[in-house]
């Protein structure tokens, strides 16, 4: 069994332990221990029933821990009781676990860490490496998060929107490391979609698939950024695009539009264009109008200005820009782009330099510095 399939069993097994009476924090620890043992033993002793094996071993780990902790009398009593007949791993448990790990009382960083561990079955070390923090720091973050949700009832109704925000964060803030966080976010969103039928879950999955499809074309071998317009579209993953578009169309057909579906629709329109020139910018602007109605986010307004610049010309784009706060991140980069399209190379070069100083990641900073360098070189010629 590969690691992904093993980790996919995690939420169900935690659910079973919780239904047998373990509290969430202890159940989660026990399942982590069982996963570690599975990784060690399964290569030589593959189990006949993987889920059953994990439940048995995790339950034993839980009992061991409870016995070792003699001060916790309540749990000691529980040890003497026979476990209730095994209800088996259920999809309800999986959904409840998503809700718990994305509970509104948690900070985004805590919710992300807890989701990756309890729902994703990643180890603390893997999560720590992925987010470039020491393992001890990540361990503390996770145990604090578990304390915060300790009083939340496992079957308390949750809001799927909070779960989607957490999954979006995992996908969008994918740092480097052994764990591919973007792929992990897709796996977790897929798994969520299997247990809850909701258009925005489908919308987010489609959004992720459509962006992930472009990944091979997004960076050069030296790690530098390739903007969408210059990407080699032959390197886009057509299998992911097909899947993303299908999921999106099914969701859109139900006519319950949401933010993620609209964002996915923009991504799908880019995916539809065989060349950058073929992009249907008019429709993209319409989707940004829809997004503006849904969220009223200044970032959406900024992206819309780019789309307007493509659909109706750079002057229209610059006009759209005048209604946006110039302190917004990436404002200078967008302004630079539109001024260059408008033929004002000197202003564009200055703005690209300014944008590079404001960039929040190295790839983007290098990219913007190169744009400034390119324009300055053109002007010297």
């Amino acid at each position, binding site marked *: 069994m590969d690691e992904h399939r093993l980790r996919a069993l995690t939420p169900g097994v935690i659910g079973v332990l919780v239904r047998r009476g373990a509290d969430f924090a202890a159940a989660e620890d026990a399942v982590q221990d069982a996963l570690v043992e599975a990784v060690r033993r399964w290569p030589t002793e593959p189990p006949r029933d993987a889920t059953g094996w994990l439940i048995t071993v995790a339950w034993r780990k839980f009992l061991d821990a409870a016995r070792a902790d003699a001060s916790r009398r309540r749990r000691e009593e529980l040890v003497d009781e026979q476990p209730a007949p095994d209800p088996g791993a259920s999809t309800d448990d999986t959904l409840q676990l998503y809700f718990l790990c994305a509970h509104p009382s948690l900070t985004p960083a805590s919710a992300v860490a807890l989701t990756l561990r309890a729902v994703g079955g990643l180890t603390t070390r893997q999560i720590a490496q992925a987010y470039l923090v020491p393992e001890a720091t990540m361990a503390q973050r996770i145990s604090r998060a578990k304390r915060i949700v300790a009083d939340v009832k496992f079957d308390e109704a949750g809001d799927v929107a909070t779960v989607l925000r957490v999954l979006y964060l995992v996908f969008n803030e994918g740092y480097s490391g052994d764990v591919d966080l973007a792929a992990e976010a897709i796996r977790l969103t897929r798994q969520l979609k299997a247990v809850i039928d909701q258009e925005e879950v489908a919308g987010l999955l489609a959004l992720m698939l459509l962006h992930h499809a472009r990944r091979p074309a997004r960076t050069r071998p030296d*790690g*530098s950024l390739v903007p969408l317009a210059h990407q080699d579209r032959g390197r886009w993953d057509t299998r992911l695009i097909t899947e993303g578009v299908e999921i999106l169309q099914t969701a859109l057909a139900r006519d319950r539009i949401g933010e993620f579906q609209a964002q996915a629709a923009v991504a799908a329109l880019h995916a539809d264009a065989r060349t950058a020139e073929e992009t249907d910018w008019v429709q993209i602007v319409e989707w940004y109008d829809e997004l503006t109605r849904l969220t009223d986010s200044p970032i959406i307004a900024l992206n819309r200005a780019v789309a307007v610049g493509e659909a109706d010309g750079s002057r229209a784009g610059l006009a759209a820009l005048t209604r946006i706060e110039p302190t917004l991140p990436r404002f200078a980069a967008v302004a630079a782009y539109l001024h260059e399209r408008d033929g004002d190379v000197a202003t564009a*070069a200055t703005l*690209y330099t300014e944008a590079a*100083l*404001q960039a929040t990641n*190295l790839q983007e900073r290098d990219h913007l510095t190169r744009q*400034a*360098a*390119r324009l300055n070189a053109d002007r010297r010629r």
Partner: protein
Amino acid sequence: MAKYLLLKHYRGGPTPVNDVPMDRWTEEEIAAHMQYMNDFATRLEGTGEFVDGQALSPEGTFVRYDGEGRPPVTDGPFAETKDLIAGWMVIDVDTYSRALELAGELSAAPGAGGRPLHEWLEVRPFLTAPPTVTE
């Protein structure tokens, strides 16, 4: 082994020999510079001397405590004359001279015209835990 911090400054250090701002380089020169920096870090990982590296945004603010129940006082952005750190690399090497040697190599990263920057880097030894054997 001893750890050293190699500090790179946006400003505040002596002027480098090859002092052309990056947005006046060609795209190829920028690419060559980035490649040099990446290769340097990779090579130090290979020799077991790399510890950590980080680039910093030029945006910075001074902050201080302003008394119980009051929000902290901020000052900044920095005046143009203030020293401004651009990033760092931490290395763990056998000797001080090795630290200087590596800083010298890093300072030779290519800049405008493909020529070495001769950029001034600051080398700062880490203070360590006290040794077990003291006599």
